[in-house]
C-alpha cells in the first residue's frame, strides 16, 4: 500500500533531505520554492507560473480531497484546473494523503502525479526546509529517485515560451474585445474575463497583437524572469505609446513596468501563498491576496507619470502600478484567485470599466 521507494531532496547548498517517492518515480531538477496556502493544490500544480519550479507546500497534509476530473467547459477550458496539465517540476510535502474524500475527486494526488510524470517526495520536514529557504533564499534543488540528475537553473531559459500557446485562440462572448497575451495564463483569468461578457483573443507571448482589432489589452501571469520576454516588452511599449487600455497580473505587472522603463529584481524567496495583505494606494484599503511570484517591480525606478497602485503591507514591496492617465494598471497578486481569496476580483470590473471609458478600436 505505502510506497517505500526512497527519494532525496538535494539542495544547491548541499542539504540532503530524505523522504519517500510519492509521485512519478523519476528525478528532476528545478528552483525550490515554498507556498504557504492551505488549500488549492490542484490549482497550484497546474499554474504555469510554477514552470521549472519544485514546489514545497508548507501545509503538511496534502491530497486529502484528491484531484478532480479534466472536464472542460463549453469554451474548452478545464473546469477544475488552471491549465491543461501539471506544470510544477516536482512536489515536496510532509504528508501525502494516499486516500482522499471529496465528491468532485476522480483520482488520488499520487496517481495524478504519476500520470503527469511529476516526481514528488513525502516525509520531509517542510517547516525546517522552508526556514532554510527563507534564510538563504530560494535555491536550485533536485528530487532524486534512483537516477541522479544535474542541477539546472530554469531561470536562464525563457520559460514563458514553454508555457504559452502556439496559435491565437478566440473565445467569442461579447462585443468588447480583449487581447490576452498568454505568457502562461491561468484558466481563471480567462474565466474571469469571459464572465464579464467580453470576447477574449488569447495570443502567444511574442505575438504582434497590434495587427488585431480590439478594445483592451490584458497581460497574464507567467513563470520566470520577466526580462526574458523581450518580444512581449517591445509590443507593450508600442501599446503604451498607442494608449491602449491595459491591465496586467503578476508577470504582467513586471512586463508593464519594464515596458514603461522601470526595473525589476528577484526577491529573496518570493511571495507564494494566499494571505498576503496589499494596500490599495488610492483608498488605503487592505486586501488579502493570492500570490505566486519570485520577481518584483522596483518602485524606486518608476518613471514619471507612473505610480504605485498596491503595496505589500508586510514588506512594503511593490504589488501593482498604474499610470496617471488611468489607461494602464497592473497588480502583482492574483485577483483571479484559484487558489486563494477572491477579494480583489473587482479589479477585472475596473479594467472593463477602464476599457469602456476609452472605447475605440485599435
Amino acid at each position, binding site marked *: 500500500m505505502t510506497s517505500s521507494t526512497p527519494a532525496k531532496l538535494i539542495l544547491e547548498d548541499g542539504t540532503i*533531505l*530524505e523522504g519517500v517517492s510519492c509521485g512519478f518515480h523519476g528525478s528532476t531538477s528545478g528552483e525550490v520554492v*515554498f507556498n*504557504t*496556502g*492551505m*488549500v*488549492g493544490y*490542484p*490549482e497550484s500544480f497546474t499554474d504555469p507560473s510554477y514552470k521549472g519550479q519544485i514546489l514545497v507546500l*508548507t*501545509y*503538511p*497534509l496534502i491530497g*486529502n*480531497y484528491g484531484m*478532480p476530473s479534466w472536464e472542460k467547459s463549453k469554451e474548452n477550458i478545464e473546469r477544475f484546473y488552471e491549465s491543461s496539465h501539471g506544470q510544477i517540476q516536482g512536489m515536496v510535502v*510532509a*504528508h501525502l*494523503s494516499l*486516500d*482522499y*474524500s*471529496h*465528491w*468532485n475527486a476522480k483520482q488520488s494526488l499520487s496517481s495524478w502525479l504519476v500520470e503527469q510524470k511529476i516526481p514528488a517526495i513525502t*516525509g520531509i*520536514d*517542510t*517547516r*525546517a526546509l*522552508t*526556514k532554510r529557504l*527563507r534564510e538563504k533564499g530560494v535555491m536550485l534543488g533536485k528530487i532524486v529517485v534512483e537516477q541522479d540528475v544535474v542541477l539546472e537553473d530554469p531561470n536562464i531559459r525563457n520559460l514563458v515560451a514553454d508555457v504559452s500557446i502556439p496559435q491565437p485562440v478566440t473565445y467569442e462572448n461579447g462585443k468588447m474585445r480583449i487581447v490576452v497575451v498568454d505568457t502562461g495564463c491561468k484558466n481563471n483569468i480567462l474565466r474571469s474575463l469571459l464572465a464579464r461578457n467580453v470576447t477574449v483573443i488569447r495570443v502567444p507571448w511574442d505575438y504582434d497583437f497590434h495587427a488585431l482589432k480590439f478594445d483592451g489589452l490584458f497581460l497574464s501571469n507567467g513563470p520566470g524572469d520577466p526580462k526574458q520576454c523581450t518580444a512581449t516588452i517591445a509590443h507593450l511599449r508600442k501599446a503604451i505609446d498607442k494608449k491602449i487600455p491595459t491591465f496586467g497580473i503578476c508577470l504582467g505587472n513586471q512586463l508593464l513596468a519594464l515596458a514603461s522603463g522601470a526595473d525589476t529584481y528577484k526577491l529573496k*524567496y518570493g511571495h507564494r*501563498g*494566499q*494571505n*498576503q*495583505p496589499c*494596500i490599495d494606494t488610492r483608498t*488605503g*484599503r*487592505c*486586501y*488579502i491576496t493570492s500570490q505566486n511570484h519570485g520577481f518584483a517591480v522596483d518602485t524606486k525606478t518608476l518613471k514619471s507619470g507612473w505610480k504605485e497602485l498596491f503595496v505589500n*503591507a*508586510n*514588506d512594503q514591496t511593490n504589488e501593482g502600478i498604474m499610470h496617471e492617465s488611468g489607461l494602464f494598471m497592473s497588480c502583482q497578486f492574483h485577483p483571479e*484567485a*484559484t*487558489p*486563494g*481569496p*477572491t*477579494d480583489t476580483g473587482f479589479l477585472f470590473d475596473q479594467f472593463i470599466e477602464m476599457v469602456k471609458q476609452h472605447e475605440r478600436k485599435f
Partner: protein
Amino acid sequence: MKPKKVIILGSGALKIGEAGEFDYSTSQCLKALKEDSIQTVLVNPNIATYQTSAGMADRIYFLPITVDFVEGVIKKEKPDAIMLSFGGQTALNCGLELERKGILDKYGVSVLGTPIKAIELTEDRHLFAKELQSINVFVPKSKAAHHAHDALAIAEEIGYPVMIRVAFALGGKGSGVAHTKQELQRMVDEALTSSPQILVEEYLGGWKEIEYEVVRDAKDNCITVCNMENFDPLGIHTGESIVVAPSQTLSNSEYHLLRETSIKVIRHFGIVGECNIQFALDPRSEEYRVIEVNARLSRSSALASKATGYPLAYIAAKLGLGYSLPELQNSITKSTCACFEPALDYLVIKIPRWDLHKFKQVSKKIGSEMKSVGEVMSIGRTFEEALQKGLRMLGMGYKGLTGNDVELGDLAKELKEPTDERIFAVVEGMQQGMSVAEINKLTGIDPWFLERIRMILVVEAEIRKEYQHAGKLSAPTLLKAKQYGFSDYHLGRLVAKTELEVRELRKHYGILPSIKQIDTLAAEYPAQTNYLYLTYHGCTQGCHHDVAPLEQKNKSDKSMLVLGSGSYRIGSSVEFDWCSVHCALALQKAGYKTIMLNYNPETVSTDYDTSDKLYFEELSFERVLDIYELEQPEGLVVSMGGQIPNNLALRCHKAGLHIIGTSPVDIDSAEDRYKFSKLLDELSIDQPLWKELSTTEEAIKFARKANYPVLIRPSYVLSGSAMNVVFHDEELALYLEKAAKVSAEHPVVVSKFEVNSKELEIDAVGDHGKVVAWAISEHIENAGVHSGDATMVLPPQHTYLETLRRVKHITEKIAAALSITGPFNIQFLAKDNHVKVIECNLRASRSFPFVSKVLKQNFIELATLCMIGKGKKIALSNLDLDYVGVKAPQFSYSRLKGADPLLSVEMASTGEVGCLGKDLHEAFLKAVLATGLTWPKKGILLSVSGDENRYKLLDHIRKLADLGFKLYGTEHTAEFYSSHGIQIKMLHKVHEKTEPNTLTYLLHGKIDLVISMPKEYASVDSGGTKIVRRAAVDCNVPLINNIQLAKVFIDAIADKKMDDLEIKAWEEY
C-alpha cells in the same frame, strides 16, 4: 475620537456553554485598552478569573451582570463607552437590555465595536434569515414561531424531521431535532418557557459543519482568521464536536466560497471587531447554508486564536477603539501587518471534555445542545498525531485511540446515536471489521477522518506484529508509532515494557521530539514569540528545533517549568488557571524565565505572552520529562494547576526532576488517604473514625460499627470523584466497586460521616513548615456538601473564636509535620468547638483566588516566593475585616437533562462567583443573584421531604409569609405548614396531572422561586421531590435546594432590599 473611560462586561460564573474562554477574551481586551491609556471599569462577579486580578482594570466590580447592577455602575462611574463583545452571551444580553431600556442613552454611553443594531439582527433568527436572504446568502428554510400551533404548521410545510432552535440562547440551549409531531409539541412547549421565540428549520443532518472566524474594521477591511471543520457532521453542537483547524476536506473552491460568503455577511451586518459564522456544507455538492452568526467573541474564536496564534480578542478590542487592521501589527512576528490571514503548517484538534458520569440519570447522548464542560486542544503535524494527543489530554484515563476501557452498548446504535464516547465506538467498529464506508453511513463522519483512525489501527497492528515476530521494536517502527501519536506508556502496554523502558529504547534509537513554533505565517517570517509544540515529524534527520531549547550562551538565565491545569472540568476550572498565571508572573518578577505547560485553549495561561515560553502540550509524565530534559529548568512547579500536576509529583520526583515547594514525598503523605489518616493519629489530631479497607466484608463490618452513614474516599482525587456518603450495606458495596475503578492504584478509606457538622476550610501558605499566611472560610451548608458546591463565607460569621483558634493550631501542626512550602488547603468538620480534619491538599485550592482577592493579598505570589526561598511572613488579619466575602457555586443543570439538581459530596457545579458586601446578607445576596437567582416577587413553591426538614425551616417559612409572599406547597409540605397556621396553597405534583398543578404554575410564571430538598444526606431522592426541582430548572425558575442556604436567603431578603446592595468597587473595600 477615542473614549476616555470604558466599561466592560464580563461573563460571570463559568457555566456549560460559557466558560473560561471569556476570561481570555476580556483579559486581552483590558490589555488592549490599557495600552491606549484608556480607563477601564470591569463588571464581573467571577472572582477566580485572571481579568479580575488587581491592576487588570482600573475599577473592578464583583457584581452580577444584570441591568440593575450595571446601571448602578454606569451611574456611578460615568463611562463614555461600553464594550459588550468580550463577555459572551451574558454580556451581550445584558447590553441589549441596557439599550432597550434606554439606559445607555440616558447616561450617554456609546457602544464600541459592533453596533447594537447589528447584534440584534444576528440574535433574532427571523430577522437574521431575512437579512441574509436579501443579499443572496443561503440560510436553512425556516420560520419563526411564537406559539406551538404555528410551529406545528411550519413543520408540516417544511416536512419532518425539523430542527428547533431557540433565539437568545447560549450554547444552543433548548435546540433539538423533532422527528414527529409529538416530539415537536413537547420541545416547543419547553423552549417557549425560556424564550419568546423559536425557529422551525429544514434539517441538515449529515452535512459538514464549517466555521469561519471573521474580522472587520470600521474602514471595511475584512479578514478570515481561521476556518474550522467539525469532525462530527451537523446535528451535533459545535461545542460538542471534535473540531479541526484548518478544514481538511474542503477544496479551494469550497474554502473560498465560504470565506467570501463570510465576508459578505460581516459587511452586510456592519460588524466591527470579530464574529463567528457557522456553515452547513453539503458533502455531495457546493450547496451551503449559513447556520449561525455570533457577533461577539466566542468559544470558537478563543480556539481560533490559540489555533493560529492570532490574538483575536486583542485585535477586536483595538478595532473597537477605531483602529484599522493595517494600522496594527502582527504581534507574533512583530514586523508584519495584522491585516492578514494566518497560514498554518500544523493542524489542531479540539476535543470536548464531558463530565456526564458525574450526574446520575443524565443521558450520555450528545446532540444539538451543549453538555461538555471544557475542552482540550492538541497540535500536531498529522491528524493521527494530534488526535491521540488530544484524547490523552482529556484526562479521562484514555491511553490514546486504542487500549481503553470503554463500555459500549449496541455498536450500530452507538455509532448512529452519538454519545460522549462515540469515537471509541468507531474504533470498536473497525476492530470488528466494519468498513470505512459502513461507519461513514452510520455516523456521517467524513471518510477522510475515518481513514485517519483506521491508519492508527493499522500502525498498532504493525507494532503488535513486529513485537510478536522479533520480540522488540525496531527503530523505524518505533519512530512511526511516535509519529502516529502513540505514547510511551501505550507502547509499553503493547510490547510488555514499562513506560520508562520504552523511553530508554527510544532515546537509544535517537527518537526524540522536535520543538516547533506557531508563527502565523508558516515560517515565511521569523516569529518573536515562543508559542511551541512538540512533534515527532521533524526528527528523521536529527531534530530541527525552531527554538533553541536551552539558552546555553547565557548561563545566568534560570528557568522554571510551571504545569498548568489542563481541561476545565467539574472541580477544576478557571481558578487553577489564575493560580498558574500568577505563579508564572511571580517567578518572572523574581528573575526567572518561565515555561508554561498547558493545553486548554480557554485559558490565559496559554496566551503566548503570559510566559517566556509556552508549550501547548500534554500534561503527562512523558511530556513533562521531554520538556524538562530539553529545557533543563531549575525546577518544576506542580502545586498550581490542581490535581493533574499534583498527581505527577511523585513520579517526576522519582525520575529525578527537581520539584520546588513541598516535597513530593510529603505531598504523597497528604494525598494517600491511608498515610494521611495515620499521620493525623500520630499528631493526635482528631479526625472522623476511619479505616483503610481491603475487602468489602471488612468495610461493612467497620461501617456497622461506626454506625452509618459513612463516607467512602479514594486517594488522589479532586472534586470528589467516586466520593460518596452511604447509608447501608448494599450502597457501600456498590460504591466501593465504583471507587476501585476510579483509582485502582491507591487505597480507599472509609470513614464515619458526621451529620449536622459545620465545614470550615483554611487556605494557607507554608514556608518550610511555618504558616506564613492563612485564611479561614466557613461553609453555609452543613458538611456533606462538596466544598466546591458549598457557599463560602470569609471571614466566618458564625463560628466560635475558639473553633478558629483550634483550626489554626491544627494547621500549624500539619504544616510542620509535612514541612509544607507553598500553597495548601485543609478542610475541617466543626461541631460545638470540636474540630476534625477531613482533608488536606498540598497544592493551591479552588478558593485561592477568592481568599486572595477578599483579603487583598495574593496568596499565590507569596507561595511562589516561599517556593524559591524568598518567603516572608504576612501580617494578615482575617477576622476584623470591615466587609464580608461570599463565594457561591454556579450550576448548569438546565443543560443536563434528567439530572437531579441536588447537593452532595460529589461536586456538580461548573463555576462560581465571589462578591463583597458590608455584611453577610449583602454579600450573600449579591453572590446568589450573580449565579442567576432572582429576587422573588410573586410566589414561592415549597417542596420539602420529611417532617424533620420541614420543621427546621418552619420559622423561616413563617417569615416568608409575614413578608407577604404567596406560598405554594406540594401535598405534604403544604399540609405541614398549613397545620402550623401558615397560609399556603397546595399544588399537585407534576406527574399527578391534576390542577392546580405545580408544572402549570411554573410554566405560567406564577412562581419565581422554588425551595425544594429531599431528606438531608439522602443519596437518592427519597421523597419524590426530584421532579419538582427538575421542573423548576427546566422552566428556568430559580431553585434553592439546601436548608441552611434557604435560611440565609430568607433572612437576607427579610433584612435587605434591592437598593441596599451597594454599588462598590473592589478597590473601595
